[in-house]
């Protein structure tokens, strides 16, 4: 039995400190992380992940607070991963999403974890998918994922979550904004929050008009007009969420998630391997940059030779000359 096994055991028993430690392992890419995930993978029960995304200040955390209350009242243990941006300069981050979820701060049935995006650009952090898996293994269902405040193109959440809730607010642009590609396309549900504010009718009209053009074959997202602060409209939102979740095929969904995990690992391993090969054949990054600035080679030539070496290694003739 390795330390990874006993940690995995404690995680599946829902020991809070173990879950927290496990999440750090996964987040930091610690040496034990892949062994831990390997041990947990077969033990993950069927569960839902629900993504909450939208621009900064749209009320994502406040809405999430309401969602937690709702699922808690049904007896579910709820997990939350809330991502806030890391500084591209210092790597530091101010993680403030917990602040809006204080009504659950001492509820043992709620596990909230804040994460810095750590240079990851899709609206989540690189470890979010694995972290969600770990929370599910610990018996939390649903697992909520809150993205950083997003702009127009952070659409990764739709790949990780079973249900993506896009939160919009009035006053953030005209109807052309609602027609753009990207973020406007990924919501399975669209929440028009701060319904007590002026401009809510225009927002609803713009969003509805945009959705009227949804291509055939894709389900038209439901739209709910709510105020997360006053609670207005939440019942409609719950109904929309329930009917979306009921329409999901768990086996198919699990397969899709696994496919994405596999692809993620592929990219990671590939990068690692390519970096080592690069260093072996050409030297350090600095040395290569120097060669390039001396005119001895170009980045494209380096890439081409790297690919050719990899080809040869696969066919077993690595030593053959150019």
């Amino acid at each position, binding site marked *: 039995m390795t330390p990874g096994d006993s940690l995995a055991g404690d995680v599946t028993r829902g020991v*809070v*400190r173990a*879950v*927290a*430690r496990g*999440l*750090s392992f996964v*987040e*930091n*890419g*610690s*040496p034990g992380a892949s062994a831990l995930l390997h041990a947990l993978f077969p033990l993950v029960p069927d569960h839902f992940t629900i993504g909450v995304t939208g621009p900064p200040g749209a009320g994502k955390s406040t809405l999430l607070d309401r969602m937690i209350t709702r699922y808690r009242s049904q007896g579910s243990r709820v997990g939350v991963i809330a991502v806030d941006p*890391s*500084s591209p300069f*210092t*790597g*530091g*981050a*101010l*993680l*403030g999403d*917990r*602040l809006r979820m*204080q009504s659950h*701060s*001492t509820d043992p049935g709620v*596990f*909230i*974890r*804040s994460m*810095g995006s*750590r240079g990851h650009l899709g609206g989540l952090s690189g470890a979010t998918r694995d972290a969600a898996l770990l929370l599910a293994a610990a018996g939390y269902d649903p697992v909520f994922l809150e993205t950083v405040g997003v702009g127009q193109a952070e659409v990764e959440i739709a790949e990780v979550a079973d249900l993506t809730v896009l939160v919009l607010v009035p006053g953030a642009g005209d109807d052309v904004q609602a027609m753009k590609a990207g973020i406007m396309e990924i919501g399975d549900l669209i929440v028009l929050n701060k319904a007590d504010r002026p401009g809510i009718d225009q927002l609803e009209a713009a969003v509805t008009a945009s959705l009227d053009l949804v291509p055939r074959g894709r389900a038209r997202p439901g739209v709910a007009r709510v105020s997360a602060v006053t609670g207005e409209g939440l019942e409609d939102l719950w109904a929309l969420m329930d009917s979306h979740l009921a329409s999901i095929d768990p086996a198919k969904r699990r397969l899709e998630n696994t496919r994405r995990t596999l692809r993620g690992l592929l990219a990671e391993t590939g990068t690692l391997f390519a970096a080592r090969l690069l260093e072996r054949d050409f030297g350090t990054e600095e040395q290569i940059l120097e060669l390039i600035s001396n005119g001895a080679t170009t980045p494209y030539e380096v890439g081409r030779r790297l690919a050719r070496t990899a080809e040869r290694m696969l066919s077993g003739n690595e030593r053959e000359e150019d």
Partner: protein
Amino acid sequence: MDRRIRVLIGKPGLDGHDRGAKYIARALRDAGMEVIYTGIRQTPQAIADAAIQEDVDFVGLSLLSGAHNHLFPEVARILREKGAGDIVLFGGGVIPEEDIPGLQNAGFKAIFTPGAPASDVVSFIENEQKNRS
């Protein structure tokens, strides 16, 4: 491996003066740390629970109401009780000189009083982190 120092900044008790806590949170962020800010009027239990879920290395408490002799040790006690006594504690706020030894006995490694520069807090954390790992 990408390991960041994680710090929770919390305000137990009833005073709502969070300028200092936010200032420190921001300074630690700029020093490259991940700072979880839990906001004002938190119970010791809520702060301890959050610290454990967030798996932080440090907890910093700020208090200006005068209830530090009760609330600070309470956070320390709950953390120890939950097996998280390894989290390093520090405090700040309006804290009379004569109260500091008692808080240190309760497990607080450092107490920062008004006028302490934010850089002192940063170097305290960085030094402690070296000792931990």
